[in-house]
């Protein structure tokens, strides 16, 4: 939340601003966004688990869902019923399912332009241009129901890009596609966004996609906007437990700060004293967050391979294979989860019940205050 408060009160670069937005479904509040800005030219991704309210947020941004309270401000002007249509003609909307009309591909891509009353020649030029850019020019005359899912989603993107809208809103546009189509379209999409400097808000539950496509990431959990920032900021420094758990920080260890000196904090964990780079007062209760890939496992008695400050002994409780990587759960008095490659697994001959040493660097951990 601190991230959001540090943003300036009003920013001339912001194309869309949400203020104190609350959305209700019946009596239940499903969305609470005190502040969110979309900057001109940026790609903002909204991530969060299923049911977090991402689609609700996007529909509210599209003026298709009426908030119970708060404002949606477009180019400095608050949305209201009177100019909603005018606003909707300055944005584009892409859903997960293509929702094409039973008409030709060309007419589908032209539909939004025709709603706007754009001249025939210009419609033709733009439609052909975007069919070309999305590699579906050859399908122009085909009935939309006779093309594949991947092609249909390309047509769907073409009809939104062709609008040359000030803002594109996309709700998981690739998640219904098979893996090869998805990858191909993600790459094309990324390139087109960069080429056209298209401002876009992109909802996804796929972290990799969020990082790949977003200049900034907003994390939505249980209807609340928990953090907004660059992808690396969010992965390295999650704002709270919920975000940490969602972005894959699997080791979240409760502790109490013992001392702080020169930016190095000593923290008492359950039976272990950790040294971590960060800021915390003495006596403060904190969570130490560690990503599993930052935990280094070695066989007992082996010479330390790294200069990691924190080193613990533990017994392997369980090994979960995940293809090329394995998760190793180590009991050090508290549980630590480490990520190990298949090659290392074989080399060290790791097995359940073995005693190993686990280490992590002082810089690998991230501190979150705890109540």
């Amino acid at each position, binding site marked *: 939340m601190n991230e959001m408060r540090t943003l300036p009160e009003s920013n001339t670069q912001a194309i869309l601003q949400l203020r104190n937005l609350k959305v209700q479904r019946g009596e239940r509040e499903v969305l609470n966004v005190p502040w969110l800005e979309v900057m001109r030219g940026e790609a903002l991704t909204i991530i969060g688990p299923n049911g977090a309210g991402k689609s609700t947020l996007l529909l509210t941004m599209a003026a298709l869902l009426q908030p119970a309270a708060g404002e949606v401000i477009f180019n400095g002007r608050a949305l209201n019923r009177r100019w909603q249509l005018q606003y909707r003609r300055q944005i584009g909307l892409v*859903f997960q*399912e293509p*929702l094409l*009309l039973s008409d030709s591909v060309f007419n589908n891509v032209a539909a*939004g332009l025709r*709603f706007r009353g754009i001249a025939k020649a210009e419609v033709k030029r733009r439609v052909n241009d975007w069919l070309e850019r999305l590699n579906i020019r050859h399908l122009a005359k085909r009935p939309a129901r006779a093309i594949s899912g991947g092609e249909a989603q390309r047509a769907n993107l073409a*009809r939104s890009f062709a609008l040359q809208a000030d803002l594109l*809103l996309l709700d998981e546009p690739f998640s219904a596609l098979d893996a090869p189509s998805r990858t191909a379209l993600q790459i094309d999409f990324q390139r087109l966004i960069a080429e056209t400097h298209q401002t876009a808000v992109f909802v996804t539950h796929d972290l990799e996609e969020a990082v790949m496509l977003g200049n900034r990431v907003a994390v939505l959990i249980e209807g609340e906007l928990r953090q907004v920032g660059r992808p690396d900021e969010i992965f390295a420094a999650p704002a709270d437990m919920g975000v940490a758990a969602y972005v894959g920080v699997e080791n979240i260890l409760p502790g109490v700060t013992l001392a702080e000196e020169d930016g190095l904090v000593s923290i008492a964990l359950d039976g272990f004293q950790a040294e971590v780079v960060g800021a915390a007062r003495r006596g403060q209760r904190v969570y130490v967050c560690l990503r599993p890939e930052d935990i280094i496992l070695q066989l007992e008695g082996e010479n330390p391979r790294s200069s990691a400050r924190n080193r613990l002994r533990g017994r392997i409780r369980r090994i979960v294979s995940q293809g090329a990587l394995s998760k190793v759960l180590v009991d050090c008095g508290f549980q630590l989860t480490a990520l190990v490659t298949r090659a290392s697994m074989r080399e060290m001959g790791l097995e359940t019940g073995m005693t190993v040493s686990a280490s992590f660097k002082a810089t690998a951990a991230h501190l979150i205050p705890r109540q």
Partner: protein
Amino acid sequence: MELIWEGIHKAIQLLISGDDEVFAITRLSLQVSGVATLISLLIGLPLGTLLALGEFPTRRFWISVINTGMALPPVVVGLGVSIFLWRSGPLGRLGWMYTPTAIIIAQVIIAAPVVTGLTISALQQLNPRLRLQLLGMGASTAQMIVVLWKEARLPLLAALMAGFGSVISEVGASMMVGGNLRGETRVLTTAIVLETSRGMFAIAIALSLILLWIAYLVNLALTWLQQRHE
């Protein structure tokens, strides 16, 4: 058996020779039911659209009213319209009782709920997110509705034909409010009832063949339109 063969034989002769009265009755039937269907469309399409897409508290109630209306017995409609158009009734002064206008009114009351009800189901079969998609693409409400009608054109056409079918074959209401007056309000169905009761089977069969032919053509047109889009 002889009665049937003789009847069919005479009926075909009648049709081939182009009997003026049979022709006039057929034309009136088509006119009355055609106009009634058109008016039902003008009522049913907007009303059905409002009930299918609108969001207001009494919506479900009105849909149940329409569904009940789809099953209105024509004789009950005939009774209701008669009461209103009767000389001493509320609309008696108009002098519409026993005129084609009276039949049209009764047939609209029969067909409009059919067209409305089937319009509702035609539009509700569409993906509800299509509306959001169209609005999100910058469609005004009117533009959105036109696109939805286009998307649902086949079931909407079926609704129209079902409306026409319900009134072209209806006899109770036409008889009661039209009076089956020769040369004025005699339509195919009322004429068939009359000729049968008089034992004039040849004419009755001839008229029935025409009625069946009309029903067949309507269905043929519908089937053709549906196949064309497959």
